[in-house]
């Protein structure tokens, strides 16, 4: 937490990406989405769920980092968002484990 004391560290005057960059990112997102949807039609067996999860996380990360500017903005924002995500994932992972979700589905 103490790093938050450095007042103007990477704040406000950062360069936002160009519109062109945004479009490239959107294109990338579209391609990943197409790949995700493709798994519905093309059977890839046991690799399916891990593949889907990886693509989901990548998309999530890209939107958060670029469109939500976390890449360029203060670490404080990232900290709050990551705290929420990590807490949610770990708590609900344990929650589902107690319900034996992973073994009995």
């Amino acid at each position, binding site marked *: *937490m*103490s790093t*938050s*004391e450095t007042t103007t560290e990477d704040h406000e005057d950062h360069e936002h990406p160009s519109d062109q960059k945004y479009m490239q990112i959107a294109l990338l997102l579209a391609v990943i989405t197409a790949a995700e949807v493709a798994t519905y039609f093309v059977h890839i067996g046991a690799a399916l769920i891990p593949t889907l999860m990886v693509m989901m996380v990548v998309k999530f990360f890209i939107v958060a980092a670029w469109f939500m500017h976390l890449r360029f903005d203060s670490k*404080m924002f990232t900290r709050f968002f990551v*705290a*929420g995500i990590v*807490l949610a994932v*770990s*708590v609900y992972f*344990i*929650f589902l*484990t*107690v*319900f*034996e979700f992973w073994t009995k589905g």
Partner: protein
Amino acid sequence: MSEETTTEEQRPLGVYTRPKGGNGWRDWVTTVDHKKIGILYGAAALFFFIIGGIEALLIRLQLATPNGTVLGADMYNQVFTMHGVTMIFLAAMPLAAAFANYLIPLQIGARDVAFPRLNAMSFWVFLAGGIFINLSWLLGGAPDGGWFGYAPNSGVVFSPSVGMDFYAIGLQITGIASLVSAINLTVTILNMRAPGMTLFKMPVLTWMLFVVQLLLVFAMPVIAVALFLLMFSRQFGANFFNTEMGADPLLWQHLFWIFGHPEVYILILPSFGIISEVIPTFSRKPIFGYEFMVFSGIAIGFMGWGVWAHHMFASGIGPLSVAAFSLSTMFIAVPTGVKILNWLATMWGGRIKFSAPMLFAIGVMSMFTIGGLSGVTHALSPADTQQTDTYYIVAHFHYVIFGGIIFGLFAGFFFWWPKVFGHMLDEKMGKINFWVMLIGFNMTFGPMHVLGLQGMSRRIDTYSPGFGFEAWNMVATIGAFVIALSVLIFLINVIVSAKRAKGQPPCGPDPWDARSLEWITPNPTPEHNFDEVPTVESLDEFWHRKWGTDEEGQIVRVATAEEVCQDGTATGVHLPSPSYWPLIFAIGLPFLGLGLIFNLWLTLPGAILIVTSLYAWIFEPVDDPDGPHGEHHADEKEVSEEASDV
């Protein structure tokens, strides 16, 4: 207000003009001042505390003798449910909010919170929710499924009255208040510290309240979902807890306790913070191991997320889960132990002054420790299987909640009363208050350990003679009335002290030789808080401005409190203007609730009030140069059209 002669044209042109302050009730309902909101929180919470106390007395009357007839079984369910709901959500949490609102800005050297109007909204929404839940007494019966509302008992089948609807919607409303307030105070603590006030120069109370706000931010949405599931099940026939269709009622228990265990620390940490201010002041020593204090508070907050299923050892969650949660529960005793140790070490070798706040603080240390120890006995799951759902559990959580929280809050009342109202509470009555409360408390809840181990179940409305429950139940009931007497002494103290102080000059700047920043302002705190925002150089800034060391390392006074304290006469301090809209927004919410329960048409006025107030809020001029804050600033005209603070 009326002597203001400025005409409309000179005021900033917004869609809506803002109310002006002044004195009287209108000032209180439109206020955005964190201090007034803190006082409002305190007054409303004390009111609910008394209601919850009366409910407790009814419970104890019913249980005083075997086959009690004071309350019927149905009424008993309602009363013990509302006792829990009222004490947790309408008394303990808002009392902590009262301290948080009043003291956080002062302790970090700010003039107000980050979002003053949202702060007012939090209070009014809390009050609306509290009144809404209690309306159920008049509109078809109070909630009767316990404060924990376990499914499927909370469903329509087992609880057909509208009580649990009021529970689900009412707690949702107070939840909004808690969440908004938590976000507001989080931003305040991070963003509005005085120059030099780094995070690790903040007083322990502010630190503990900061941890509480973070816990609220992350825990409130969980109870929100649980309450939505309950509400949808009851209102729209959703099947979240319908076992006939394969649903699992344990879903509720998990969601409730994922929220509920952080909630335990939401309740206790403010009290820990309060006594961490009181004990050093009256031991005349700095707090022992400040960093340990802070980090153990953070650790408690963090670990509080990993122990929820220890409330569910008897619900059949499986041996692996039980073992894991048993272990994590034992670990969480460690940071709490660290705190107790640090308070003891703070007192060690100090020149202790046993004033009323200090007595209550020592009460917390001793009584909470008893409750903590019985808590560790539940962590051992084989023992817990025997204890669960008996009075042993009731004894345990009252030792931590009453012994830990209520004693702590009373320590806070006595300590900061001069700060808030400018006069002291009567010291002698305060000491009597403490001893009566301590005796009554132990008489009430001490015997419950025995009753529980003898096998008396909790939540039952009566018991038969011949199990050996009679004597201890009678003692507990007498104890409950002794507690009531102690609260009465407090209320009399409040009135007598206020009467005595009338016409007298304020109590002076530093009645306790205190340590932290809030005491730099005069007592009572002026509307603008600080004449000049101080630059902070050390932890216990106020103390260090009064005391220094000479060549031999002896502590010597370098300045009197009068020299250090500001005189509160600054003029031209720019403060946010009052607003009607937080109150109007809050009034809309109970209508939504009543509409969902009784007649959907009632949601219409609710929705109109909410939407109108939100848009009016946004388009309200950001400030009013003719505002109510004394001598005003003709030079501050940088008024923009739209309020930027949401």
